[in-house]
């Protein structure tokens, strides 16, 4: 045989496995009620689809557009976010449009993080943060959210960072901290005070903040999404990331954006022009038009940003009720469209499943095969040290149409019944 010495580069060593590849395959069976992966099975609003049809009919919108972001889209984004942030945002220098928020995370990390850097990641975390930091050659430093209450109420607000523990994670090598609010998977909406603690440390240690705010509009009654970039001293050190997929229920459009000061965004733009150069045109045009429609009604409760949130709040409440009726104690999220629940109280004995996987992985696989219901194991969202702490939790996604939640209800109501 011919010589062949080619293996993967060092930068991707050990980064080949991925919880989604594993679990989306397993849940692909249509007979399974899929509350696992975070994608809506509700339709996007019709005007969003109409704008895409309109865009595709214009010849030049099927060809390349401006690399850093289609002009009408960056203009619309700058208007919406100027209003939200209360500051001027230059569409050409302060914004980069990327392939999903995922692409923004990648561009930010590749632009600003390298070997020798440490990056603080709050556990549980959206799973890509860790491999992306590693691929950039840097060291992830984990700090867990800890459940502070002993009592019966379980709200995402009960999960907090210990300020002393957090301060201890910062040192001269700390290049950035990744913040995710509203938080996936717990649904925590960081309060102003909590953000101030983080901001103070960033300023003190000259640390950047990568703020993943894809669920920014999905915030439930009594809660307010606050952008850490709007805190004093933070705009100049923060990249704020948003997502069309989460904003308009079009995860398959894969459009996201990074917003920040020119002296940081320019480096993300360099990464972008050397990785994929430009994002699809018709999708960007359609998104721009959708943003104009909702920008004009941002004072109106009918604005999709708020109406989606209201729709999801009732789904959240229904999901919580279903789980409670099954004898479980879900953590009620203040934002986002995920809900975590401690399943150890069900006492499902999986000790005979002799895989080296954490309990929640085994539980979800068992639940998929025997209950035809899927979720995502929480230990997929933590570093190696905390897997024990989180392996009794699983995550449900509730941005699902009524019939899906109805089917979940049947399964949960019949949970304790033995099969015939």
């Amino acid at each position, binding site marked *: 045989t011919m010589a062949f010495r080619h293996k993967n580069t060092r930068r991707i060593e050990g980064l080949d496995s991925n919880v989604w590849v594993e679990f989306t395959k397993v849940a692909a069976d249509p007979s399974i009620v899929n509350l696992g992966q975070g994608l809506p099975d509700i339709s996007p609003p019709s005007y969003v689809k109409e704008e895409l049809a309109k865009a595709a009919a214009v*010849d030049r919108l099927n060809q390349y557009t401006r690399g850093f972001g289609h002009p009408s889209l960056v203009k619309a984004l700058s208007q919406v976010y100027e209003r939200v942030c209360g500051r001027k945002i230059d569409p050409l220098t302060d914004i980069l449009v990327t392939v999903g928020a995922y692409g923004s995370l990648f561009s930010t990390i590749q632009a600003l993080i390298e070997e020798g850097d440490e990056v603080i990641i709050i556990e549980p975390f959206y799973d890509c943060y860790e491999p992306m930091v590693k691929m*950039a050659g840097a060291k992830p430093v984990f700090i867990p959210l800890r459940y502070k209450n002993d009592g019966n109420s379980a709200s995402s607000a009960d999960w907090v960072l210990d300020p002393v523990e957090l301060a201890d994670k910062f040192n001269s090598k700390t290049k950035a901290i990744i913040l995710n609010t509203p938080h996936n998977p717990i649904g925590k909406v960081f309060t102003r005070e909590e953000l101030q603690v983080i901001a103070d440390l960033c300023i003190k240690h*000259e640390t950047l903040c990568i703020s993943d705010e894809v669920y920014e509009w999905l915030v439930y009654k009594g809660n307010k999404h606050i952008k850490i970039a709007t805190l004093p001293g933070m705009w100049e050190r923060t990249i704020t990331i948003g997502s069309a997929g989460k904003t308009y229920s*079009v995860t398959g459009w894969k459009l996201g954006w990074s917003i920040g000061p020119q002296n940081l965004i320019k*480096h993300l733009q360099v990464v972008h022009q050397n990785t994929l*150069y430009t994002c699809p045109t018709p999708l960007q045009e359609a998104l721009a038009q959708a943003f104009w429609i909702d920008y004009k009604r941002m004072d109106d409760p009918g604005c999709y940003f708020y109406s989606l949130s209201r729709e999801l709040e009732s789904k959240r409440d229904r999901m919580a009720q279903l789980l409670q009726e099954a004898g479980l104690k879900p953590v009620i999220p203040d934002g986002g469209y995920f809900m975590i629940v401690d399943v150890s109280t069900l006492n499902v004995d999986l000790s005979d499943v002799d895989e080296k996987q954490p309990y929640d992985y085994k539980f979800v696989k068992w639940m998929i095969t025997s209950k035809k219901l899927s979720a995502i194991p929480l230990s997929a969202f933590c570093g190696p040290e905390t897997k024990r702490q989180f392996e009794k939790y699983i995550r449900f996604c509730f941005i699902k149409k009524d019939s899906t939640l109805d089917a979940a209800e049947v399964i949960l109501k019949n949970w304790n019944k033995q099969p015939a």
Partner: protein
Amino acid sequence: LRTHSLLSLFLQAKMSRPVQARRLEGIDKNIWVEFVKLAATYSTVNLGQGFPDFPPPDFLKEAFVKALSGENHMLHQYTRAFGHPPLVKILAQFFGKLLARDLDPMTNVMVTVGAYQALFCCFQAFVDEGDEVIIIEPFFDCYELMVKMAGGTPVFVPLRPKAPKDGKLMSSADWQLDPAELASKFSKRTKAIVLNSPNNPLGKVFSRGELELIADLCVKHDVLCISDEVYEWLVYDGKEHIRIASLQGMWDRTVIIGSAGKTFSATGWKVGWTVGPNRLLQHLRTVHQNSVYHCATVAQEAVAQGFQREFERYGKPDSYFVQLSKELQQKRDWLVQSLDAVGMKPIVPEGTYFLVADISEFKSDVPDVPNTDEPYDTRFAKWMVKNKGLAAIPLSAFYCGAHKNNYNHFIRFCFAKEEATLKAANDILQKWKLEKISP
């Protein structure tokens, strides 16, 4: 007090380092940013950046609208990360037929955000610091930038022009590699060679002999081949596009890259793909899942429909690939005529929708400036767009820094343009020539 001053020392050290990562060194400049802006500001006729000014075919646009507005609204949600199943299935079928090989859609095909992202995945997956990558000049500029970003060392080898036969126009076939020179570029550190056939900017379609030369060296030195074949369907004069992966010993070490943008005249859709053996594609999947993860669904669905249609019509007169190639050959011939008539010497391309022309006879309009870093053709192209409203790209844009002055009296035109655009270009050129004869 002591801890405080120590902390401020550390802070000073951190603040004195640049905020950006070292991997961005030397890759921040990009000629397209500048030339796209110039074209937008000054040009009346834009033959610069490579994209068609005619629309994608109706059947493709219809497939897109059907996908976005159909009953299945799940096409607006995530699809399979490594490629929408209908698309990878038809790509496996189509390229399996072309390569006479059984391809598994799940492991031998991966969809990317344009061919650009496919290239990125290849370099990130296979090029480590210290690895050398051979790049044939002139080259699509991102190859050098991506090799550098991956920490690799680009090693350049030029296509050299041979004088054309008496009385004939030069052809892209007259630009050739020197076999000994090519062989000398392979070293122990050579990880890969980037092949681009049909070649942008020259339009060269590598012959079987030329590909065998490259293949033999790849096998001998155990080197990977990154084969950028985005213009695979744009081949003229009955020439054949030969896929290097079909040569002896090459399938196992080649990643083939393709583009829906170029195939279906829809550059703004940004759908590309890689085809290759699983032992190479597995690493591309790792890069992909840690960088963009999913590609947009609707466009993939539409491209799948497009390929299905073409698969059924392969080689037949009503195949879009056949028709597009015919149309573009005609446009090529028009532009060749236009340029030749005014004294710009075209190098007739065997493929792609680009054409390079020698502008030496127009040098008097743009005098040489001593002691300048800017290559002559770049100054010429900038002058031309500002003063004549005609946008083209200087050939030096496709050479590495050290070689930018080797062939600095050529500019590249894109002829994937409507008849009216090419006529307007002709008018500009004719007027210009008249001004030279009788100023």
